[in-house]
C-alpha cells in the first residue's frame, strides 16, 4: 500500500522549478539557446553585420564571404543578418498567438472549472468545435479577411490554440475543486475569489507554464508554415519566408534551406525540452512514497534466484516462509519493506496477517503470489509452497501456479474488475486457460459459481459489465473468480475493508464456507482484529516488516505476549462506555 499525495507541485513552485532546470544539462542547454535567440531578436539592429534589405547583386545565391557570413539569398541579401531580424518577427508573432491563447484559455477554463454549469457546457462545446478544425486551413480561409498582417493572423491562431489551455485549466480546477482542502477553505468562510487566488492558481501555475512552452513551439512552426506558403508580408524577413525563398532556389543553392530550418528547430526543440524538464520535476515532486513512480512496466516480475535447498516440511504444512526479505529499488538504494518474515501455514488453516499500514503485510502476501509491483523483489529468504520453492521460480513456472494452486482476493472490488469486459468473460477466460476446459463447460461452471457466492440473478451478473453491479456484488464475483480453479491456497488482501459492515459480515461468512467446501488454506491480510477473531485460526502480528508475535487465535486474544500486540488490542474501542453529557454552562466553560 503506497500513500500517494495528491498531484500538485511542491512547496515553492517557482524556486523549485528554477533549480530543476539549472540542475538538468538539457534544461541549461535549452535555456541558453532560448536566451541567445531572444537576445538576437532584441539586439538584431545592433549586432547584424548588414541591413536585412541590403542588396548585393554579386551575392545572389552566393557563397559565404567576409561580409555575408552565411552567403546571400536569391535577392542578394545577407542570410545571417536576415536570420537575426527574422527571429524578431517570428518570435513576436509567436508571442501574440501564445498571449491570446493563454489569456483566453486560462480565464475561461477557470470560470468553467470553478463555477461549472451553463458556462462550462457552452465553453466546452466551443472548445471542442475549435479543436475539430485544421488550424492552418482556417488561417488560409481567413487570409483575405485578415489581410497579410502576421500579427492579426497569429492572434486568430491564438484563439484556435486557446482550447488547449481551456481544457487543461478546466480539468485542473475541477480536480482541485473537489479536493477536501477547498471544501475546508469554504467552510472557513473564505470567499470564492480568495479560494481561486490562494488554492487554485497555486496548483495550476506549473502545468500552464509547461503548456505555454509547448504551444510557443507550435505557434512558431505554424507561423513559419504560413510564411512558407507565401502568406506573410514579403517586406519583413521571417524564418518561414526565408525558407520559401530557399525552396524556390533549391537546385541553385541547396544549403540555404538549412539555416532558417535550423533556427526554427533549435528554438522549438529548446521550448519543448524546457517543458519536459519542468514536467519531470513536477512528477517527481508530486509523487511521494515508494511505488508511486514504480511502474508495472514489465509483465515479468523481477525475482531474484535465492533458491535454498528445500528442507522437508511436515506433511500438514502447505506454506512455509522463512527469513523473507522484500525490497524496492528506489533512488536512494534498496528499501526493505519486509525484513525477515517467517511464517507457517497448515493445510485447511486460516492465517490472519494483521498489522497497521506500512507493516509489510500486503507485500508479504504479494511476494507469495509473485506479484510485487515493479521495482520490488524478494531479496533473500525462502517461500516453500507444498514442497516447491517459489522464490527462485521464473515467471512461466509462477504463471502455472497462479489461479490453479494460488488464488487472490483483492481489497478494492471495483478497481479489480476489467471495466471493458463482461463479468462472465472475466470468469470464463481464466478457467479456460488454467483448466483447459471448453467454453461451454467454463460458462456452466461460472454460472454455478455466481449462484454459489450468493448473487441473486447469476445470468444477469454474467452478462453485466463491472460498472453495472454494486461493490458488494463485485467482491462476490472476485471471490468466485478466485475459487473457480479450485486452488489450494487463497490469499485475501483486506477483502472486506472497502465494504459496508453488514456486507462484510456476509462476505466473511462466504469465505469461511468456501474454505471448507474447496479444502483451501487461507491467508487473510487485515488490519481489523474483529475480522481476525471472526475468521482466523492463527494470527501473525506484523510491525515494520517483521512478525512480532504469532499464535493461535484464542491465546493471542486472551494472552498477548508482545507489547505491541497488547497496545493494538488496547486500542480497540468496543469495550468503551459512552461519555456522559455535561452542558458547558454547568462546568463554567464558555459556550
Amino acid at each position: 500500500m503506497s500513500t500517494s499525495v495528491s498531484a500538485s507541485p511542491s512547496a515553492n513552485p517557482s524556486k523549485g522549478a528554477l533549480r530543476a532546470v539549472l540542475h538538468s544539462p538539457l534544461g541549461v542547454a535549452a535555456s541558453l539557446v532560448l536566451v541567445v535567440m531572444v537576445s538576437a531578436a532584441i539586439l538584431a539592429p545592433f549586432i547584424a553585420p548588414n541591413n536585412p534589405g541590403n542588396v548585393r547583386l554579386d551575392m545572389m545565391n552566393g557563397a559565404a564571404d567576409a561580409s555575408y557570413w552565411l552567403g546571400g539569398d536569391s535577392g542578394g541579401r545577407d542570410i545571417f543578418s536576415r536570420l537575426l531580424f527574422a527571429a524578431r518577427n517570428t518570435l513576436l508573432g509567436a508571442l501574440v498567438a501564445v498571449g491570446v491563447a493563454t489569456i483566453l484559455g486560462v480565464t475561461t477554463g477557470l470560470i468553467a472549472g470553478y463555477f461549472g454549469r451553463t458556462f462550462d457546457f457552452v465553453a466546452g462545446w466551443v472548445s471542442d468545435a475549435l479543436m475539430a478544425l485544421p488550424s492552418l486551413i482556417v488561417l488560409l480561409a481567413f487570409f483575405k479577411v485578415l489581410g497579410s498582417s502576421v500579427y492579426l493572423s497569429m492572434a486568430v491562431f491564438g484563439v484556435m490554440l486557446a482550447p488547449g489551455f481551456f481544457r487543461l485549466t478546466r480539468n485542473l480546477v475541477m480536480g482541485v475543486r473537489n479536493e477536501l482542502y477547498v471544501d475546508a477553505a469554504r467552510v472557513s468562510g473564505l470567499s470564492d475569489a480568495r479560494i481561486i487566488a490562494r488554492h487554485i492558481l497555486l496548483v495550476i501555475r506549473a502545468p500552464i507554464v509547461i503548456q505555454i512552452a509547448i504551444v510557443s513551439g507550435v505557434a512558431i512552426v505554424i507561423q513559419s508554415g504560413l510564411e512558407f506558403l507565401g502568406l506573410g508580408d514579403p517586406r519583413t524577413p521571417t524564418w518561414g519566408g526565408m525558407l520559401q525563398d530557399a525552396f524556390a532556389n533549391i537546385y541553385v543553392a541547396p544549403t540555404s534551406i538549412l539555416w532558417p530550418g535550423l533556427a526554427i528547430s533549435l528554438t522549438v526543440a529548446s521550448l519543448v525540452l524546457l517543458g519536459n524538464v519542468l514536467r519531470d520535476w513536477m512528477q517527481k515532486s508530486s509523487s511521494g512514497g515508494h511505488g508511486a513512480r514504480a511502474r508495472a512496466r514489465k509483465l515479468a516480475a523481477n525475482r531474484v534466484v535465492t533458491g535454498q535447498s528445500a528442507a522437508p516440511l511436515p506433511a500438514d504444512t502447505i506454506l512455509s516462509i522463512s527469513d523473507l526479505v522484500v525490497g524496492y529499488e528506489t533512488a536512494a538504494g534498496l528499501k526493505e519493506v519486509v525484513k525477515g518474515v517467517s511464517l507457517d501455514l497448515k493445510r485447511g488453516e486460516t492465517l490472519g496477517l494483521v498489522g497497521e499500514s506500512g507493516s509489510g503485510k500486503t507485500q508479504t502476501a504479494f511476494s507469495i503470489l509473485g506479484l510485487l509491483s515493479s521495482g520490488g523483489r524478494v531479496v533473500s529468504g525462502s517461500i516453500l509452497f507444498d514442497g516447491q520453492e517459489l522464490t527462485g521460480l521464473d515467471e512461466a513456472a509462477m504463471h502455472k501456479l497462479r489461479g490453479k494452486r494460488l488464488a487472490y482476493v483483492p481489497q478494492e472490488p471495483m478497481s479489480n474488475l476489467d471495466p471493458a469486459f463482461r463479468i462472465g468473460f472475466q470468469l470464463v477466460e481464466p478457467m479456460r486457460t488454467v483448466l483447459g476446459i471448453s467454453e461451454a463447460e467454463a460458462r456452466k461452471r461460472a454460472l454455478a459459481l455466481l449462484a454459489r457466492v450468493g448473487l441473486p440473478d447469476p445470468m444477469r451478473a454474467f452478462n453485466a459489465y463491472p460498472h453495472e453491479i454494486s461493490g458488494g456484488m463485485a467482491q462476490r464475483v472476485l471471490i468466485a473468480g478466485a475459487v473457480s480453479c479450485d486452488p489450494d491456497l487463497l490469499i485475501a488482501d483486506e477483502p472486506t475493508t472497502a465494504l459496508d459492515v453488514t456486507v462484510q459480515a456476509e462476505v466473511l461468512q462466504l469465505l469461511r464456507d468456501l474454505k471448507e467446501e474447496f479444502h483451501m488454506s487461507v491467508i487473510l491480510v487485515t488490519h481489523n482484529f474483529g475480522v481476525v477473531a471472526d475468521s482466523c485460526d492463527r494470527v501473525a502480528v506484523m510491525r515494520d516488516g517483521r512478525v512480532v508475535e504469532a499464535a493461535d487465535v484464542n491465546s493471542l486474544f486472551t494472552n498477548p505476549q508482545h507489547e505491541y500486540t497488547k497496545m493494538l488490542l488496547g486500542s480497540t474501542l468496543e469495550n468503551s462506555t459512552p461519555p456522559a453529557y455535561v452542558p458547558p454552562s454547568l462546568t463554567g466553560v464558555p459556550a
Partner: protein
Amino acid sequence: MNAIPAIKPILTVRDLVVEFGAKGLKRRGFRALHGVSIDVRPGETVGLVGESGSGKTTLGRSVLGIGPVTSGEIIFDGHDIAAMPPRQRRLRNINIQAVFQDPYTSLNPSMTIEDILAEPLIATGSMSRPEALARVRTLLDQVALPSDAGQRYPREFSGGQRQRVAIARALALSPKLIVCDEPVSALDLSTQARVLDLFVEIQKATGVAYLFVSHDLSVVRHISHRVAVMSRGAIVEYGDCDQVTARPEHAYTRRLMLAAPVADPVRQAERRKAFEALATTS
C-alpha cells in the same frame, strides 16, 4: 432521555430534504434525504451512523453549507441558515467548522501548516498576522503537535498528525459546532483511539459541540452522547448513546451492531450466530 431538557439546542435540523440532479426539465432527481430531523446541544456530541448511501455525509455537508438543501430548516444559534443568502451564510458559518475524512487531501500540499492554520483567521478579518501566528502556536499546542510544526508542509506528517492539523484548523475560529465527517476512518487503529481522545479532550476544554459522522458504531459509541442511526436517507433510530449502541430497538441497528466483528473469538462466535439468526428471520 434528556437529563437536562432545559438546554436549548445550538443546531436544529427540521424535515431536511435533499435531492440531487433535480435541476432542469428532466425526471425528478435522486432523493438523498427524506425529511431528516436532528438536534445538537452546546457541548454535546451527536453521532450519526450509517452505511454508504445512507445520507449521513449529505446531512453533514448541508449543515456546513457546502451541500444543497431542497427543503426543510437548518436552525443554527437561532437563525435558519438554510434560507440565508450565501454571503451572509458564509459569515454565520464561521461558527460551524469541519474535520474531513481524508487527512491526505484535506490539507493543501503547497502551504505550510502555519499558513493553513492562519488563513481562516486572517481572511475573515478577525486578526492581524502576528496575532494569528500567536494563535497558531496555541492551537498546535492544543492538538499536541510540536511548536516547530508550523514551518513544515503537510507531506512531512503522518495521517494521524495531519488529522490533528485539520482539527486545529477547525478550532482556529473558535466555532460552536464542528461537523466531523468520518474523521478517524482513514487512520490506523492505535492512531484512531488517540485522535478520538483528542476530540473528547477539546470538547471538555472548549465546550464545542460535535456532529460526528461515522460508519463505525464502536467509534460513535466511544465519543457520542446521543446517536442517530441512518438508513436510506432517513433516521431509523435516535436516542441516548448507550441505549442505541448497546440495546438497539430497531432491527437495522441491531443488524449493524451484530455485523461488526469484535476482537474476541468467543464473543465474536456468539455475535456471528446472532447475526446469522437475524439474517434468516428478517
